[in-house]
């Protein structure tokens, strides 16, 4: 976890420069935009995802694109990366009109993309995934690859086994590998679709340094994020999409001259229009959040107890080692840590998706160590997975069925084993409305929803139908600002008014500080400390997260 110094990054990026001739042209200083879209439109059944979008992305500039969930950001990026063909409009690269009809074409044109959801090949190792694009000569230059990976990993503050299969990595780690992959072969335009959604504050800082460096090398960087401060820190140009249209775009002349709060107001106003309300003064928009005091007077009634729980570490994972945790009724216990330190293992062992090698788990006093996933669910245990595409939803089924996926065969949605479509539709409509899921309808195939809306489907399913204890793994990842706040309110509300205990696993320290009563820190599969939440606690937690202060 060393901090990459600027000189370090410089060596890294200049290595990249040498490795790739294309970049030289970029530094020579071309004048026009690197990539430009003109009046680009793209419709899907029931939605217009992009509506006559015109934007220009310049060399040596970080262009931040923001917008609420389902605004059409990923669609626009998919058009640039050759995944979708626009219905109309033109795409220009270096001033020439081009047809990007395949991802391969995009790569040829020097457009590298980090997609919103991981695209690593699960059975390949990290190194194989990274080196897929190389293939010069008969043998892969494994030594060279390892060295390069090492360099990148150090810069991003990432510890990863290069020979672990990609499927074993935490999603946050996969995302970092994706970023490395896009940087690996060098490109003139770098698209990053929510690259920071799973990184820790440190990771984000490192990434921001790398991006600034790349910009100085002359790259055009397109950066999609839901976090305002990132846009303000990084963006030379900031554009806002809303309902598929560009509703605001400010170039360097404006961004550099306006104050941060003025820019914030502009962005939030454009993003949510009338609905923005007083979002701007909410803590999340401000920088430097600190802990809030632990709530007093919670009933001392343990609902979930982990006693010396251990999970075997598979290759590429850290496992879980003798974890002791007690969650009381109505309590929110944050679990902080860098992704890949046992979060998934911990969540899965509680949910019953993974077997324990030792220890016991008790729900309301009764051991559930031998209960299966379904049994634990019916006892009121819920698990909001962070892998909404991999396991959280079934993309080929309708939104409606996905909302009742964990109640298949149960009343009132099924009776005598037969489906009751009206009942499902009714419940689905309520949830779609209650959680503001943007979808053409409940019959829409779930896989077509935008990332954030998919996340809302997962949340809606887990938080309805009387939960008792909820294990959240990165509950707000991929959600836009407004929805993030709404979901946090809901988590807090469920805890306070319904006594729903929450184990809040998150890599977003700010989220943990905002919600938790107590904070446990997970490092290499062990709890390295549990502290009461209080103003000023973040320094201590931050140290624990990096493994410092062990045995505290």
């Amino acid at each position, binding site marked *: 976890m060393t901090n990459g110094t600027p000189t370090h990054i410089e060596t890294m990026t200049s290595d990249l420069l040498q490795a790739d001739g294309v970049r030289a042209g970029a530094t020579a200083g071309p004048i026009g935009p690197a990539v430009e879209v003109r009046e680009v439109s793209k*419709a899907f059944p029931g939605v217009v995802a992009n509506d006559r979008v015109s934007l220009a992305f310049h060399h040596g500039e970080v262009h931040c694109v923001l917008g609420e969930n389902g605004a059409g950001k990923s669609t626009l990026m998919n058009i640039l990366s050759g995944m979708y063909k626009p*219905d109309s409009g033109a795409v220009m690269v270096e001033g020439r009109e081009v047809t990007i009809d395949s*991802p391969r074409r995009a790569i040829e044109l020097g457009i590298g993309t980090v997609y919103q959801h991981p695209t690593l090949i699960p059975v390949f190792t990290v190194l194989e995934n990274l080196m897929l694009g190389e293939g010069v000569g008969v043998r892969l230059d494994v030594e060279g690859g390892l060295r390069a990976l090492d360099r990148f990993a150090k810069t991003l503050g990432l510890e990863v086994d290069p020979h672990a299969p990609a499927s074993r990595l935490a999603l946050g780690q996969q995302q970092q590998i994706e970023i490395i992959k896009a940087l690996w072969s060098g490109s003139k335009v770098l698209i990053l679709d929510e690259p920071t959604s799973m990184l820790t504050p440190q990771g984000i800082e490192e990434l921001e340094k790398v991006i600034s460096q790349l910009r100085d090398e002359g790259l055009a960087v397109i950066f999609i994020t839901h976090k305002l401060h990132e846009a303000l820190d990084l963006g030379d140009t900031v554009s806002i999409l809303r309902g598929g249209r560009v509703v605001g775009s400010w170039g360097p002349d404006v961004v550099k001259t306006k104050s941060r709060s003025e820019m914030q107001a502009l962005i939030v106003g454009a993003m949510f229009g009338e609905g923005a309300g007083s979002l701007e003064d909410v803590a999340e928009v401000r920088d430097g959040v600190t802990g809030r005091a632990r709530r007093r007077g919670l009933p001392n009634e343990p609902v979930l107890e982990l006693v010396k729980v251990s999970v075997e570490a598979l290759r590429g994972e850290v496992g879980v080692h003798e974890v002791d945790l007690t969650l009381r009724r109505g309590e929110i216990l944050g679990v902080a840590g860098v992704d890949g330190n046992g979060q998934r293992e911990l969540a899965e062992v509680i949910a019953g998706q993974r077997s324990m090698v030792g220890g016991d788990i008790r729900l309301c006093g009764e051991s559930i160590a031998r209960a*299966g996933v379904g049994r634990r669910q019916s006892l009121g245990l819920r698990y909001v997975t962070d892998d909404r595409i991999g*396991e959280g*939803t079934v993309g080929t089924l309708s939104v409606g069925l996905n909302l009742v996926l964990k109640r*298949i*065969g149960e009343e009132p949605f099924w009776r005598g*084993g037969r*489906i009751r479509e009206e009942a499902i539709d009714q419940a689905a409509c309520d949830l779609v409305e209650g959680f503001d899921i943007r979808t053409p309808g409940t019959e829409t195939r779930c896989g077509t929803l935008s990332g954030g809306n998919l996340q809302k489907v997962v949340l809606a399913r887990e938080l309805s139908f009387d939960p008792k204890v909820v294990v959240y793994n990165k509950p707000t990842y991929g959600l836009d600002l407004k929805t993030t706040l709404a979901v946090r309110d809901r988590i807090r509300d469920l805890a306070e008014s319904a006594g729903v205990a929450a184990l809040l696993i998150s890599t977003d320290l700010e989220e943990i500080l905002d919600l938790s009563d107590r904070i446990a820190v997970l490092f290499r599969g062990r709890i390295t400390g549990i502290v009461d939440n209080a103003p000023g606690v973040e320094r201590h937690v931050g140290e624990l997260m990096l493994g410092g202060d062990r045995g505290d």
Partner: protein
Amino acid sequence: MVATVVTDVVSTSRAVVRGASAAKAGTSARWAWLWSLGQAIGPILLALLVSAALLLALGKNPLTFYRDIVSQGLFNKGGIQDTAIRMAPLLLMASGLIVAFRANIWNIGGDGQFLLAAALVAGAGPPLIGALPNALAFVILCVTAVVVGGGWTVVPAYLKARYGLNEIITSLMMTFVGVNFANLLIKGPFRSTTTQVPQTDVIPFKELLPRIPGTRIHVGLVLALIAVFAVHYVMTRTAFGLKLRVLGANPRAAAHAGLSIPRLTIVGFMLSGAFMGLAAAVEVLGVWGYVRADWNPNFGLPLFALVFLARLNALAVIPLVGFYAVISMGGHFAARQAALPDDFMLMIVGLILLFMTLTEYLAGRSERGGYLSAGLKKALGKGGGDE
């Protein structure tokens, strides 16, 4: 080399992202049905065209050949009844394949399950039918066939459910064992004492399954149609069917949702085998009345192509199986007329499969989605990730 690797990366990531966002038709949904129709029929037309060229090269007249197929398989009064009779076991086996494939279970041992059940029905049939009222004997024989067919899947099903062993290999191995075991039975305990060639005793023609009045078509066809509709209903309207589909589309989501994957795998697999067994009972009791040693109609293989063409939709299978039955019954006749080996028909079916795969690829390119569910795609190694 570079190019292939890049293409691989690109097509994989494309598959992943396409799966992830499950890209649908960019153009208006109104024409979607037309597209699916074209996707189902296009490969067949292309296959017929290529076969026509081959026939020409062999010095045969393709028009005569195809006319023979159609006139015999469809328009000849006896021919169309033969076609209908042939459909019965095919529909049952197709039902079994759909149940399995929907759940991402690759039961490719259908022929073994079929033959073993056929041998037992043919062995036990004559004495049972002699001793009991026919209706009762039929029921007992069908149940036996169902148990045998289903039972023959237990080993691959258990190995897959418990140890994650690849069922393609295990069910294929069970087929070898099953086919040889069936022969052993026919040449041994079930062998008729009255015939020269090794075969079972023959059930007299009038003791076979009853006919649909006014036709030669046995009631097995009705049973098969009921089975198809039942499978369609179960897969689309019931909790059990949905569970199988979830398992097939995204096994990890199935685990996450708390479904019992081992149980579903075993039940789905056995159900699939049960249909294979029932198909055997219907074919033996409705058409042959006996089984000869080394008899193997090899129904299974071409059916794979048909159920995928039907996109694993049970109702869509009916016309396709009908079409196939016309080709295969008429084809026998046409091949004989043209002095070609019977295998020529298999070649046409093979071509259809080939063009189908091609269409699948092109459909993928144009973001229109393909025949295969994401889970199946993964099983085929066409791309990972996604659901």
